[in-house]
């Protein structure tokens, strides 16, 4: 049987219409599941907050072990892999020195202690996150409590968010991370597939269970976590009474990680 061009086009058009129609039917079903999911409410133990924030009290970080305990706890809990090649590195929380953390103009005459002690760095969970604005699929988004979160199943791996983040807080799974998870796999948090971006999430999975972030628990008071919107919270009290600094505040992203430099009480 031979068909002419007109017939061919008509049939091709019909098949296309059929395909589009059936995909609509399928997505129509999916809509119902979304409606059901929307019926769920927050867990009763979920810690409420309008703006989660963290204060890093540098006076409490004294030895190498103080830093490593915090880093290892976080990376273990969240199944963060350890790649041998620094090119593929994934980090959620790590340390860097003063000049690199607070980039922008060197001051070599600073206090020796400040100059040489490492600072904890992690995602700043900015109030105006450039990464959220950049994401073309809303795979990275801001929760009502201020936490900048990631949907690993929606991320297409374009890495626009990595270009947008001025803090270098984001890592990309250049390789399959699963074989590089050290020790036992944590059941508290999902492992990731290759090709998606990830970063610190302020332990929202623990907050939902009424727990503080893992790094805060392990920091011996070096990391203070709370609701910036609550005038009685510890973070708010520190920030409003003591001198704290933030990374690159001039960019207007309003980072929610504050650094208390120069000691706790006499700052």
């Amino acid at each position, binding site marked *: 049987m031979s068909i002419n061009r007109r017939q061919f086009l008509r049939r091709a058009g019909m098949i296309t219409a059929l395909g589009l129609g059936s995909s609509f039917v399928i997505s129509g079903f999916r809509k119902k599941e979304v409606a059901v999911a929307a019926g769920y409410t927050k867990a009763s133990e979920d810690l409420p907050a309008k703006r989660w924030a963290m204060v890093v009290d540098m006076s409490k970080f004294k030895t190498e072990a103080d830093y490593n305990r915090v880093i290892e706890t976080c990376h273990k809990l969240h199944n963060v892999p350890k790649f041998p*090649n*620094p*090119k*593929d*590195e*994934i980090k959620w929380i790590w340390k*860097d020195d003063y*000049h*690199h*953390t607070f*980039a*922008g*103009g060197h001051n070599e005459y600073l206090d020796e202690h400040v100059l040489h002690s490492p600072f904890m760095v992690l995602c700043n969970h900015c109030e105006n996150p*450039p990464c*959220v*604005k*950049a*994401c*073309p*699929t*809303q*795979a990275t988004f801001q929760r009502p409590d201020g936490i900048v979160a990631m949907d690993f199943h*929606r*991320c*297409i*791996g*374009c*890495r*626009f968010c*990595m*270009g*947008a*983040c*001025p*803090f*270098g807080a984001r*890592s*990309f*799974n*250049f*390789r*399959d991370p699963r074989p590089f998870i050290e020790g036992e796999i944590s059941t508290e948090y999902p492992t990731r*597939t*290759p*090709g*998606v*971006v990830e970063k610190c999430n302020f332990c929202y999975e623990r907050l939902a269970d009424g727990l503080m972030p893992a790094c805060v628990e392990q920091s011996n008071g070096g990391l203070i976590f709370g609701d910036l919107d609550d005038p009685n919270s510890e973070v708010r009290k520190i920030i409003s009474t003591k001198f704290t600094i933030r990374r*690159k505040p001039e*960019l*207007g*992203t309003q980072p929610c990680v504050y650094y208390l430099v120069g000691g706790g009480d006499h700052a």
Partner: protein
Amino acid sequence: MLEKALSGSKRYWAWVLLLLAIIAVGFFAYMNQFYNGLGVTGMSRDVSWGLYIAQFTFLVGVAASAVMLVLPYYLHDFKKFGKMVILGEFLAIPAVIMCILFIFVDLGQPMRIMNVILHPSPRSVMFYDMIVLCGYLIINLVVGWTTLGAERKGTPSPKWVKPIIYLSIPWAVSIHTVTAFLYAGLPGRHLWLSAIMAARFLASAFAAGPAILILLCFIVKKVSKFNPDPGVGAIQSLVKIVRYAMIANVFFYILELFTAFYSNIPEYSAPLRYIFFGLDGHTSLVPIMWTATVLAFLGIALLVFPTRKNGATLTIGLLSIIIANWIDKGMILIVAGFVPNSFERVIEYSPTLNEILVTLAIYAIGALLVTILYKVAISVREEKAS
């Protein structure tokens, strides 16, 4: 009309086969990347975009440059470009397709690409880039195909296509402006955070794009009976466009250098110091950038002086301008945007062989599409002439 691409000389088929071979090699390289992840490229946590996104940026410019023929011809009735307009449009189509392919191979999860449409994000510049690129592809396909089809039948182009042609003019400007906004709107990337970025993009596009087109016209003249410039001076008019666009491009670049170095704000000058002089002992881009600088001035000189009228020196001048622009936009601008990184550390990038093979394959796909489209256009013209 496509059937015209199915008959050709031995040389034509040898060229097509060569391109297919390059595509096949690149396809296997891409399969390797697909299964093992983007770790097979030179990109890292610090330099998270590389060769692919740089090629995308360069080729958006090539695509946009068709407007340099369309605008004079349709808006100013500049008849000299009559025979060349179709070649411009048929260069834009493969260029946009290459852009889309470069974005695709750069994705960590390419199978999820439709998420961009399923979850449209109007706050993201990427969303608008998708719209303008797809729109530009459709516009050029419709305009090119319709005008050539009408020409083949010996009838004037249908009336409905005129508004689409006019639309293509601002649309061409928009594709490169939006692409510049991808970079220029990011806080903390000082090399990109510049108001003049879109203007620079357009200037370099209107230099490199028409320069490529002129070289393609030379090839067309050599391999076929069709002469895109039958003694009317179309090519020399295009040379003028290339020359002034390149002068504007270099001028804009010097503006960037002045602001960065005279203000002496360390973050602003750091990436420029890195590419021109090296930073913290890292100098891998320095020789490449100086090559581009020399070629840019050489190209302008050869196009300003009477050397522009000599076939050989004109070719050298155009090649210099294309290479200078390719180095600037198709390599350094993207890579150096990440150097130094957010912690003011210099982490360098160099592409891997796998990455280069994929890149070459996409260029081969582009070359194949140009070959097919030009073959169709030329065959129609040859048919009319005989």
